[in-house]
């Protein structure tokens, strides 16, 4: 029995942490939030050089051949630093190819995705539809020798910079569509989280390729996505607790730092108690994805529901702990607050996943 990280995993997390500490300082984050793009190409290249963008890709395709737990540990660090960019969609789209792609599809894409040279993303949600594979309505039809895809996807992460879209299609399968294909229309959406921007992607008879194992990969992809969001939420919520503690140690009122006041201390202690034990829940969910397939869907659902709910509440508490300054655009707290909103909504709300967890347990 061993419920802990390996030395390599601790090193991985530590490396990611040091990298972001150095390369993603507050001023850069602030500039990105206020800027036109949610992508920082330098940062992405740096992450790629460290191997962080191809962690789960098989080694022969240039990846690190690691597991979801490793990827989730990195997602936690990205959440902690509110790191921007296509990591979430890219990781999931890459996983879709690894799990459900043909040999030819993998050969064509995986090396470039593992190196970060190409960016992929995942397009699931549709207008008026849901995240569940059963709710996808985008159609794929035969046209001569090839396939054509039609329909619209919403809230596609990093849509504006992605080279490749992994698209959920009617019947629960997955299709590959290249950005440069004729009939692909991409539009930015004013998303709430400015560190992970989203877009609307329309397909009007664009050339597409089906993943042969797409139907089997789709539910696994959802589980992996839920775990990554839970990990991001843990990182973000932990950072919120730290920000609140730092503020309580420096802000002076009535002649003392406000951290002296028991009302403040208890609020901060409650925030810490809400999030710290949940670290182990996302670890377990990731481990289940890797090694305990029967437990994976339910644990992924509960981890996502629990951790993103906790993150949202802690982000709210963090605004409160900062007083008036916490409510301003200038204060960094709003950056994590909006990441919490993203983590909570993306791939379905906590309530949706709690109901799934209830069904999966046979309640």
């Amino acid at each position, binding site marked *: 029995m061993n419920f802990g990280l390996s030395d390599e995993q601790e090193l991985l997390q530590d490396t990611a942490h040091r990298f972001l500490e150095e390369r993603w300082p507050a001023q850069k984050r602030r500039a990105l939030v206020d800027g036109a793009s949610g992508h920082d190409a330098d940062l992405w290249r740096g992450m790629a050089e460290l191997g962080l963008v191809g962690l789960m890709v098989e080694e022969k395709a240039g990846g690190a051949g690691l597991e979801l737990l490793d990827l989730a540990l990195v997602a936690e660090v990205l959440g902690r630093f509110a790191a921007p960019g296509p990591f979430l969609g890219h990781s999931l789209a890459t996983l879709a190819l690894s799990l459900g792609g043909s040999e030819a599809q993998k050969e064509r894409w995986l090396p470039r995705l593992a190196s970060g040279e190409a960016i992929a993303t995942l397009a699931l949600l549709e207008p008026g539809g849901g995240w569940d594979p059963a709710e996808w309505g985008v159609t794929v039809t035969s046209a001569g020798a090839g396939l054509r895809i039609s329909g619209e996807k919403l809230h596609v992460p990093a849509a504006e910079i992605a080279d490749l879209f992994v698209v959920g299609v009617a019947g629960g399968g997955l299709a590959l569509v290249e950005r440069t294909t004729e009939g692909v229309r991409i539009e930015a959406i004013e998303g709430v989280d400015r560190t992970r921007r989203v877009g609307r992607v329309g397909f009007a008879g664009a050339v597409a390729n089906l993943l042969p194992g797409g139907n089997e990969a789709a539910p696994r992809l959802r589980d992996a996505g839920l775990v990554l969001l839970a990990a991001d939420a843990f990182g973000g919520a932990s950072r919120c*607790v730290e920000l609140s503690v730092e503020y309580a*140690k420096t802000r002076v009122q009535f002649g003392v730092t406000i951290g*002296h006041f028991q009302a403040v*201390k208890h609020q901060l*202690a409650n925030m810490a*108690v809400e999030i710290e034990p949940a670290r182990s829940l996302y670890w377990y969910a990731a481990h289940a994805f890797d*090694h305990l397939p029967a437990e994976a869907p339910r644990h992924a659902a509960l981890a996502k529901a629990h951790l993103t709910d906790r993150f949202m509440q802690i982000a709210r508490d963090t605004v409160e702990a900062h007083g008036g300054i916490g409510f301003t655009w200038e204060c960094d707290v709003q950056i994590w607050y909006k990441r919490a909103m993203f983590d909570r909504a993306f791939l379905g709300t906590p309530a949706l996943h*709690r109901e799934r967890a209830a069904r999966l347990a046979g309640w």
Partner: protein
Amino acid sequence: MDLRYSKEYEEYRRKVREFLKSHWPPSGEAAKGSEAEQATRFRALAISHGCVARSIPTTYGGSGQPPDVLKAVIIAEEFGRVHAPGDVRGIGASMLVPTLLEHGREDQKHRFIPPTICGEMHWCQGYSEPGSGSDLASLKTRAELIDGEWVVNGQKIWTSGAQIAQYMFCLCRTEPDAPKHAGISYLLIDMASPGIDVRPLRQMTGTADFNEVFFTNVRVPMDSIVGKRGEGWAVSRSTLKHERNMIGDAAGSRALFEGLLRLARETKRNGKRAIDDPGVRQQLATIEGYVLSHQYSGYRQLTQAARGKDAGIAGMMNKLTSTNIGHSVAKLALDLLGDEGLVAPNNEARVMGLPPRGHAGWIIQNMWSLGVAIAGGSANIQRNVIAERGLGLPRDFAAQRESSR
């Protein structure tokens, strides 16, 4: 990370089952005497098989096993399945024994640990006083050394099990002129000593599990002190560092939650099972998120302990987490009880069972969840500890004033 039950563990489970099959429930000679006597005999046997008192060295009657959460889980599961008596619960095993292991003299360890861990010797804790609750170190019960004996005068309160305990571990003021934390000593007091008066306190549940204890010129042998004079405060801070501490609370939360699930399945609401109600399902899954976090955090803490690392802030949160879970469970259970929540529990149900049985059992759980929140360091004191020691926030004004005095 590796959570599989390897061959080695499957083999261990088989051995535990075999042991239980031959020895529990007891038969023949072993079935003689009262239930308590049977349990004590069985525990002695279970200790020799490494299933009980695992963290206690063999010299002091334990089974001296290295920490292993999977084995502990297997034992808990298998013993639970056949309702065999496992580790002795209660304050003697959980607080006195670790304290003696860390601070006791050899003769004290040999005399007190073996009978405590097999359930023969019961203890009560003489800490709180009417004027000293959260501010425990302000306690006033005096112990004066007169003619080679401690003479104890004063009053303790909220003393669980004082009516059945043979001994009390007690904090007394022995150095009245020293600063408050430095004036306290830790004494082991025979509850049969003349001058001790135990008076039951009736709780909101209707039963009296705890007491007031009055001391009038109670004479206690000089060598009953653990640690040195004036070091009682430090001695009493010993925490327990073994398997049960890390999985114990969480296993309790899990058992409570399983009971709640059963209640939701068995309760009718609008002609359907309550568990079919979408609102109830949401609440159950919400609580389960906390329960799983608590469980897995316990596993993680144990792994860290096995690697010689401190659990850090996570270790300070276990009590508050289980308190919070107890509150949430109590609220949902009362909703599920509906009209049954108007009925007072009968006498048999007044003892808190885990999981609670029947409607009356859940009404008791509802009240006991508050007892748990207060006992052993109230929730607000836990928050202070987390904030000050865990998050590094300043100590509160009163405590600061004292330590600078």
